[in-house]
């Protein structure tokens, strides 16, 4: 019998169900970026270290380069494109801008999703808890200073409209 090399999966991404025939070896991040065209999720390494590809999978922050697309069959995924609602930025997005928590913007989508995951589970994080929550996300531009400030500002409700 020929080995099965592809599989039909169904994934709900940002509220929309997508059904696709995918190669068994296709990474989830490539499904998101290349097949669904959601290019906000980025790739910065090939070892799972950098976190640029972080998305929420059934509410958990995961590195989408560390999962096969077939492993996401039946799952609900949120990417950076889900954050803004009808043109209004999510408070984290606004705070990142207010605090200059991004320069090149490449790590930002993954960083935002890790930050969202933190605040979804811990409304009043300490600075150390914020740093722990984003330690899987590498930023090469900011030294993390303003990212930590921005997340703390959202937790304290200090975000401009």
């Amino acid at each position, binding site marked *: 019998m020929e080995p099965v090399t592809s599989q039909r999966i169904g994934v709900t991404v940002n509220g929309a169900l997508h059904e696709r025939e995918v190669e068994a070896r296709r990474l989830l991040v490539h499904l998101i970026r290349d097949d669904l065209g959601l290019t906000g999720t980025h790739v910065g*390494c090939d070892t799972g270290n*950098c976190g640029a590809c972080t998305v929420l999978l059934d509410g958990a922050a995961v590195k989408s380069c560390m999962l096969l697309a077939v492993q996401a069959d039946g799952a609900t995924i949120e990417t950076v494109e889900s954050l803004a609602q009808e043109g209004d930025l999510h408070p984290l997005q606004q705070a990142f801008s207010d605090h200059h928590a991004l320069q090149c913007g*490449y790590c930002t989508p993954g960083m935002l999703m890790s930050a969202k995951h933190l605040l979804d589970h811990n409304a009043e994080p300490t600075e150390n808890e914020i740093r722990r929550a984003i330690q899987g996300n590498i*930023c090469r531009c900011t030294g993390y200073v303003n990212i930590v400030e921005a997340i703390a500002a959202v937790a304290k409700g200090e975000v401009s409209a």
Partner: protein
Amino acid sequence: MSTTNATTAAPEQVEAPQKGFAGQSVPRKEDKRLVQGQGVFVDDVRRHEVGYVHFVRSPYAHAAIANIDVSAALELEGVYGALIGEEVAALTDPFFQLSVPPGSEIKDYALAVGKVRHLGDPVAVVAARTRELARDAAELVEVEYEPLPVVVDPERALDEDAAVLHEDAGTNLVWSGAFDWGDFDTALAEADRVVRIERLHFDRFSSTPLETSGALVEYDRGTAQWTLHANNQFPGFAIIMMGPALRTGMDKLRFVSQDIGGAFGNKICTHPQLVALCLLARKLNRPVQWTEWRTDQHTGNSHGNERVFLDVEVPVKADGTMLGFRCKAVDDCGAYSRYEPLGCIIWAQVTPGLYRWRNVHIDFSQVCTNKSPCGPNRGYSRMQHLWFTERVIDIVAHELDLDPVEIRKLNYIKAEEMPYETPNGCVYDSGDYARCLDMALDLIGYGSIEEKRQDAQSRGKLLGVGIGSTLDSGTNNFGQSQLLNPDLQFSGNNEVASVKLDIFGEVVVTLGTTPQGQSHETVASQVVSDILGVTPDDVHVRAGHDSYWNSHAGFSGTYASQFAVTGLGAVSGATELLADQIRRLAAVILGADGPDAIVLDGGFAKLRDNPEAALPFMACGAIVNANNAGLPPELDDVTLNCRYVYKPPFQVPDKERKFGNLTLTYATQIHACVVEVDPATGVYEIVDYAAVDDCGNRIHPQIVEGQVHGAAAHGLGAAMFETFSYDEDGTLLTSNFYDYHVPHALDMPPLKTGAIESPSPFTSLGTKGMGEGGGAGIHSVCAAIQDALRPAGNAIVTDSHNPYHRVWDLLRAPEASRALVKVEQR
């Protein structure tokens, strides 16, 4: 919060900051798209029927290529084609070399021809229907290698029995020369003490931008033109390298980019990969897409230069005044000289560091080794040299028992001496180093440092304080290249901007730059809005770069700390031209006496004496662009579409004396670092850190501070964690982010920042280029470790990279480092 912003008011002698949007931290224009994942980075560009590209790379550091067989790869269904070195050698000419002999004899192609010279050297490239398939195909390419002896250690590269990388050059030497300024022998004779340091080593690392290199390349058969959607950060240089190699004209290589995910110099030297993609796109008659893998970036792309300083001699007077230095420097540029040997002169922009050292002699040489080729890396070449000057200061202070703060203040160039001409003719434009140092020391609570030292001691820790004082020299005079090779025809610098008033009154700005996080859209809009009397929201700055916009020149790009001078010089020049045209037009329409009677305010051109009489910008745009019948002939040149080329005032340096001004502006960074070392393990922690910056007038203080944070983080990463480490076979041991550890959020200490503004007298806005910093983080950590180890054996820090195990070595065997330093009493 973790950050203390201790920004102070401008010094008294400085003019008050101009009123307007410049100087304010307005919201960043780039953010709205970037926080929503709507940026367009190179891997986001899509084309139908694209071929995904994978490079086949050498597993050996040095080997002859006996045979390459791509037939198995081509048989795989979905593989579109391949390209190997022999085809590249037939279809292209070797890249232009900047050096004189022997370096000029190096033959460098887009793919390895005949032999490989470093692990990761590309030997073939394949294209296929999917990324995965391209990787499969690459694995099916069979390459027969015949391994050769390798050269890893730059200090051994010129040994008689060392293997030679480039037979055409006949040696591993790329470039060598002597730099001699002042009178070192007399200084030596006048010294009361001479401090000698046998060897100092600056380690190999790179800033490893999070987005790797990449391109989508299309070839148009009808016009024989390539379009490169590429994240190269210096298209001007890439085109100069690629055009002759591809035997085509400059305009046949169209460079396009929008958002670039960090670059830090590492995306300047991608021309070899881009040439391979151009050939492949033409050969296969389809667009090809390449996104470099992280491992490939580490093994095969730009590294920062490694440098060794040997036989250092420092003459010192009894009071601690230092008269200069003499040394040999050996720079390791890896397997190919792609931007080199420019690093052999660029350090000379900051020859004496921040110090009044008048007598300097350096015998400088650059060699090839079987390691990844080097390219510019944030602080390029100056960082290595400034680390040397800061090590010299702290080792001299340590050996002569002088206070590291006082010896700096004694030897620093003084604020009242600015502008200051260095021994080699560079002109430091402005600055107040001692004042910045005092601010940095205040931020770390230096006044109570002895109590902190005792507190640390009571907890079994060794506390140390270190200072890193550096300059960020910006706006290159490319004439410095002629000090390496008198036949090179490069000098000066330039940047371009176009500003137009469109048909509905929109202000549209086009830049020649290729920003990678430096916020050019925002900063340009601030400058434009102040001149035109509108708000930054009214100004549309096109995102990114496209050489078909015709808003670029030979040196366009984003590199070497220059946008605030060259980029904004071009923006303000073009906007002034546009403002003048609007005033001339409005004067005619409104019947004014002349353009001087018109003011621009709130989107209107108004009569100065009667603001009720006003012509909206929309009308100006409409009249000139779409309703121009009957305009008088004196307005024939009014197009409301103005292009300006900014050109800094440089001369070609004196080639005989290697003397002249090599950069226009010099921003100051003074960092202060406090570490606590565990003497049992060598593990240390940065417990306090301050960075004070002076880059003249700041157009956007928040953006400036962000650059300071980032530069500090790169320095700390290099000091503590980041190293491209090779074994004796030339195998890279840190080829991904597992092994090459960059700082994570928990690794970074809180950063305190401060700023003063010493406006540059040489730039119209009083700005200075900034952003690279000078590696002050590396220097301050080295100094702090050395200070901490005083009571535990007095070790000397002689390497720029100090992971915990190296500190443990210094604790265990301090005499080994001490043996490298000798003091001659006179």
